[in-house]
């Protein structure tokens, strides 16, 4: 625990700024939109229609009655203007990158370029069937091939699959490849995967899905992996070590060389969770450093939008040793200037598919556009600016909050509300909710699990220094408020469309759908 500024000092800094001066709501417009009825509540039988022609009356005559529905389908019936208003009004209830600062650590909520949305919708890309013969798919195949090559170059790896649909699926792909690698060598005693205690939850969950036992090793006081503990855990049963670098604490793993040596000496392989690759583009290449396999989160590093939870894409890059095990099909060069998918059985040692078809190709188009817009110099500048912004904000936030680890940080940093909680009873959850009243999306909270009252803050490279200042001022103002009016912080938010929710009863008696509409169906209008 270094670099922590005493709370007394911070409170004084905050005290210089009354809440009004901190300009609540400065982050963006106030979120005061009205709640909306559901589609079912809006439905009036007889509304809507006209989208497709009516079929002939005997269209289903040849289908046996036993295969048909016994009751007509009931769905909401709305006309298009109502549909539009419903979704537009619902959209107003969302906070988004397009409307304000979204410093959600580990999630990289940077600006999503509009060109990329346009590109993915070009009819040539959008309407191409996934089983179209290669000769019809040359444009997309060329794009995918170029993206494979770019990701290989950026990661310092030998080969790339674009198939995994998300980071977690990339992890599963990589760990199953490692499993296949050991199995191919007859090395079947390796039943364990080691993860640090700061890891993403997906890492141990992936290890379990791939049939491994998870062994957790602690972090050292400086936030890095405890090398001695790792060496103790390594052995003939270790299949792989999964590391996030930079770590979930926003720190580069300073002992990376010794760490990777230890992993390989034990006969295990090193997996890198590339969720934080956006911090080190052009500064660190995992493959060149000795990692065997990694995934990218295209929706983080290469700015494809998060879509309210997805889709993302989780391409996997690996070295020569693991390349034979990549799931098929990869995109390969055919005749000069043309491309094709690998044929079945072309690489006999490939693990099975992890997804149908070729992956989240629409996401790949956006990531390709992002990489080509930036080039080598631009990608490095992205990381430089992200890291500079994070360190600047870290210093400003550190004027009031504990910083459990020494800097410099990379693209994100952790702060702790532990002292604040001890002094006032105000928890990090309350601070996060009060940020909403200041017009900001809260940072990630209570992750990583190893930091008490944790705030994980990631500003990204697309936020201006003015925004960073406003955000820091809001966090510091909340500190003052927590001392002077703790109830105000604990009851936040008050300016959002809803106040805090009863999550306990939602889980106790789950209501996961509206009341069935079945029976409401009316005869088809003719």
């Amino acid at each position: 625990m270094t670099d922590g500024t005493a709370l007394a000092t911070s409170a004084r800094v905050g005290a210089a700024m009354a809440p009004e001066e901190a300009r609540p709501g400065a982050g963006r417009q106030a979120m005061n939109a009205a709640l909306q009825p559901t589609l079912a509540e809006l439905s009036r039988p007889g509304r809507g229609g006209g989208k497709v022609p009516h079929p002939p009356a005997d269209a289903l005559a040849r289908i046996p009655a036993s295969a048909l529905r016994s009751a007509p389908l009931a769905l909401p019936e709305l006309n298009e203007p109502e549909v539009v208003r419903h979704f537009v009004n619902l959209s107003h209830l969302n906070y988004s990158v397009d409307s304000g600062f979204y410093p959600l650590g580990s999630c990289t909520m940077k600006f999503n370029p509009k060109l990329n949305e346009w590109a993915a919708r070009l009819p040539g890309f959008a309407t191409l069937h996934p089983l179209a013969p290669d000769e019809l798919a040359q444009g997309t195949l060329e794009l995918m091939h170029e993206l494979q090559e770019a990701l290989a170059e950026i990661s310092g790896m030998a080969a790339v699959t674009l198939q995994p649909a998300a980071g977690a699926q990339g992890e599963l792909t990589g760990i199953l490849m490692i499993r296949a690698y050991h199995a191919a060598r007859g090395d079947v005693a390796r039943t364990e995967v080691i993860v640090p205690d700061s890891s993403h939850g997906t890492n141990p969950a992936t290890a379990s899905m791939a049939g491994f036992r998870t062994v957790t090793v602690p972090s050292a006081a400086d936030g890095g992996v405890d090398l001695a503990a790792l060496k103790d855990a390594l052995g003939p049963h270790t299949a792989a070590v999964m590391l996030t670098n930079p770590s979930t604490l926003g720190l580069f793993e300073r002992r990376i060389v010794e760490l990777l040596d230890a992993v390989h000496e034990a006969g295990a392989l090193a997996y890198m969770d590339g969720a934080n690759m956006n911090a080190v583009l052009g500064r660190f290449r995992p493959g060149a450093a000795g990692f065997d396999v990694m995934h990218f989160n295209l929706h983080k590093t290469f700015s494809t939008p998060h879509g309210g939870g997805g889709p993302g894409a989780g391409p996997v890059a690996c070295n020569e040793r693991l390349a034979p095990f990549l799931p098929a099909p990869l995109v390969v060069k055919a005749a000069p200037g043309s491309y094709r998918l690998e044929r079945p059985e072309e690489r006999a040692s490939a693990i099975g598919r992890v997804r149908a078809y070729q992956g989240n190709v629409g996401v790949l188009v956006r990531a390709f556009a992002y990489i080509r817009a930036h080039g080598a110099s631009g990608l490095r500048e992205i990381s430089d600016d992200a890291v500079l912004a994070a360190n600047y904000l870290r210093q400003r936030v550190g004027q009031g909050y504990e910083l459990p680890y020494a800097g410099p940080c990379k693209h994100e940093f952790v702060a702790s509300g532990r002292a604040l909680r001890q002094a006032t009873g105000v928890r990090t959850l309350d601070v996060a909710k009060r940020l909403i009243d200041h017009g900001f999306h809260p940072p990630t909270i209570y992750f990583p699990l190893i930091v008490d009252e944790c705030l994980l803050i990631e500003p990204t490279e697309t936020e201006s220094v003015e925004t960073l200042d406003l955000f820091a001022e809001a966090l510091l103002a909340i500190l003052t408020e927590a001392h002077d009016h703790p109830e105000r912080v604990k009851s936040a938010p008050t300016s959002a469309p809803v106040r805090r929710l009863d999550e306990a009863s939602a889980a106790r008696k789950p209501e996961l759908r509206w009341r069935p509409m079945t029976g409401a169906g009316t005869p088809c209008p003719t």
Partner: protein
Amino acid sequence: MAYGPHTHDDRGRMMAALGIESVDALFEDIPIDVRASRLDLDPPMAELDLAVRLQGLAARNRTDLASFLGAGVYHHYVPPVVDQMLLRGEFYTAYTPYQPEISQGTLQTIFEYQSLLAELTGLEVVSASHYDGATATAEAALMAVRATRRDRVLVSRAIHRHYLDVTGTYLSGGGLVLDEMPTLPDGTTDLAALEAALADAERPVAGVLLGQPNAFGLLEPMAQASQLAHAAGALFIAVVEPVSLAVLATPAEYGADIAAGEGQPLGIAAQYGGPYLGILATTTELMRQIPGRLVGETRDLDGRRAFVMTLRAREQDIRRDKAASNICTNQALCALAATVYLAAIGPHGLRDVASLGAARARELELALAEAGAPRLHSAPYLNEFAIRVPQAQAVHERLLQRGVLAGLALARWYPDDPELRDALLVCATEVTTSAEIRRFAAALGEELA
């Protein structure tokens, strides 16, 4: 940098605050041995140049053929309202709704998606989305394994080959067994063989997996298969196509415990493979076994109705190695597309889409039979079926030159099956025109003559 805000002065101000003269100082924690040299990538492109390049690539794809290719991904009419709602930045640039107070838009649309899919499938619990139909199917198989504590899953040979492959991959980690059940000459699953496999007391079965329609477009005897599975203590898993559920019996009606499927036909473009929408639905009994996010209704402190992610104890960020799945990022925006699509098209519209596809497919069947390519199987179909074509793969290639994408040569999926080697799987939907059907039939007739 294309999208960054920082001026030279801004950077200077931040560096001054940090007491550094170069940003390099912030990267000194990277050991010198592993610091990267300059990346070898093409130089940055101006937006105009990049737009031209992207247009050129898109134009290299050929999407102008008369297409009869389905095999799990179907071209449908998508009302423009769907994409216009999807293009709202409030939806597509938001994250997972971890802060429900400022995410009610996303949360309510997921609740509505769950409700709409519950209406379509008849099952009460629908996950907020999985990656695609194949991974939803694999997760369904794993659910059956967890729920029954058995380690063997039976799958019909008439299941989409990629779904079989992905399910095999997902089961391989835990050393679980996936056994394929044969089909009858009429193209449906051999229930006698299924019954025999279920009767093996040494190898109890966790789940039985059939497609409706199956991979050949045919309608399976789902109710009988479901009864056989349940009699042996196994769960019954239906792999469904959502548009067909406007007219076909629901998974709930034939007793399925889990339904999985590809949501792409609900307003999502083909995009050479994704992003799509993995549908996963189950019964209330199995609610705590379902992987992936769930949204539930609740109240806020003032008693207002609101929505929140719930039953989170199944998920990886809480349960880590004991989670039901490692899934985190899902396909939320694709679920929104399906929600807008279903709201816009309505119950009668969806029934019309399904029925019109069936009518066009019948027209296609008659035209192709006339041209000399009769159906391969005798079981009823909805809007997709296999036809018998000698040298199918070669004919398929020649038809491309005539501007016809003649479905899928089943040799790609069943290379060792002598009957399927000479077959094409073709489909029609409401967007298929009579002119396209005539063109296909005429071209095929000439090839076969």
